[in-house]
C-alpha cells in the first residue's frame, strides 16, 4: 500500500491536541515537561472542560506554561501556586483548578504552601514535575536531588553530611488526611505516558466529584541540567531516580495503597 493511501483524514489515529497552542514549546529537546503538558491537555479535551479549567503556572522552566496550554491560566510567585489555586477554587468551586509545579517550586520554596494545601484537602489537582534539580536556573541542587547526584551546586555529588537528605514530598503528602489520590508516574516511554494520562484523568474526575486533593508526581528528566542526551537521561532516570522514587499509586480514594507507606505506619501487608 502506498503511503499516500494511508495518510488520509479518514485514517487519522493520533494528532496533537488543539488544546496545545501552536507556539513551539520552550523546553529543551526531550524534556518531559512538554509530554506532561500534552497529557494534561488531552485529558481536558476528552473531558470537554477546556472553558472551565484554570491552571496555575509556577516559576521554573514551565513558567511559560500559559503560552502552551490553551486554557485560562495564572502564573504564581515561586512556590505559591497551591495558595493561588486555593483562592481561585474557593471563589469558583464549579471550575476545575490545577497547579503545575517543578520540584524546586513545590518542594523547596513552596513546601509550606504544598503541605498546607494538601492537608486542608483543597479540591484541586497538583501536577508535580520532579527532575531532581533546578532546571531553569542552571541545574542547582534541589531538595529532591539524589544522594551522590551531581548538580552545579553539588559538583562532587550530594553529600548527606553536608547537604542533607533528599525529600520524598509525595510520600509525605500521601499521609495527610486531605489528599484523596496520590501517585508517582513518568512520561519517558509510551506505556508510562499512557499510565500518567490515566492518573491525570482520575485526578480531574476526583475534582469533579469533590473528593479532595489529587497529587500526581511525574518523575522527569532534565537532560540539560544532568548534562546528558535525552535518551541517556531517560536511561539514567530509570536506573537512578526510580529506585529512590518508585513509580505507582500511593493513595487511591483516600486509602493508602503503597506497601512502603503501610509498613511505615506499622500495617502488615504480607
Amino acid at each position: 500500500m502506498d503511503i499516500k493511501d494511508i495518510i488520509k483524514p479518514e485514517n487519522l489515529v493520533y494528532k496533537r491536541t488543539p488544546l496545545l497552542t501552536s507556539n513551539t514549546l520552550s523546553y529543551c529537546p526531550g524534556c518531559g515537561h512538554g509530554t506532561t503538558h500534552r497529557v494534561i491537555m488531552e485529558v481536558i479535551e476528552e473531558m470537554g472542560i477546556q472553558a472551565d479549567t484554570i491552571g496555575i503556572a509556577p516559576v521554573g522552566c514551565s513558567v511559560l506554561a500559559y503560552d502552551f496550554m490553551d486554557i485560562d491560566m495564572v502564573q504564581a510567585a515561586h512556590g505559591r501556586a497551591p495558595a493561588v489555586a486555593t483562592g481561585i477554587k474557593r471563589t469558583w468551586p464549579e471550575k476545575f483548578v490545577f497547579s503545575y509545579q517543578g520540584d524546586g517550586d513545590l518542594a523547596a520554596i513552596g513546601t509550606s504552601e504544598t503541605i498546607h494545601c494538601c492537608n486542608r484537602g483543597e479540591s484541586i489537582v497538583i501536577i508535580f514535575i520532579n527532575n531532581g534539580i533546578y532546571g531553569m536556573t542552571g541545574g542547582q541542587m534541589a531538595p529532591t536531588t539524589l544522594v551522590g547526584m551531581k548538580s552545579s551546586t553539588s559538583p562532587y555529588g550530594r553529600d548527606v553530611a553536608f547537604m542533607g537528605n533528599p525529600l520524598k514530598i509525595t510520600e509525605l503528602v500521601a499521609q495527610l488526611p486531605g489528599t484523596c489520590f496520590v501517585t508517582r508516574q513518568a512520561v519517558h516511554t509510551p506505556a508510562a505516558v499512557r499510565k500518567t494520562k490515566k492518573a491525570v484523568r482520575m485526578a480531574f474526575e476526583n475534582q469533579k466529584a469533590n473528593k479532595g486533593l489529587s497529587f500526581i508526581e511525574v518523575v522527569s528528566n532534565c537532560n540539560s541540567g544532568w548534562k546528558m542526551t535525552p535518551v541517556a537521561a531517560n536511561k539514567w532516570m530509570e536506573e537512578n531516580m526510580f529506585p529512590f522514587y518508585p513509580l505507582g499509586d500511593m493513595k487511591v480514594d483516600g486509602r493508602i495503597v503503597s506497601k512502603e507507606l503501610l509498613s511505615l505506619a506499622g500495617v502488615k501487608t504480607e
Partner: protein
Amino acid sequence: MAKMKGAIVVDMERCKGCELCVGSCPTDVIRMAGEVNGKGYHFAYMEYPDNCTGCTNCAVVCPDGVITVYRVKED
C-alpha cells in the same frame, strides 16, 4: 487477520531531534535525518515505512507533540 498499515507525519520544522521516538518504535521505523531543519536539529523521519503499524507509540512519547499517525486495515 487483517494487517495494520500505518504511516507517520513528522512536523520537520518543529522536531527537536531528541530521538525519543526512535527507541519507542516497536518495528524500528524511525531514523534521524542527516540534514537539519531551520533550528539546526536533525529531524525524525520514516526510514522503513513498510514496517509502520500505526501503533502511535512514537507520537505518544514525543515531547513536542509533532508526530501525526495514520492507520488503515490492509486486506
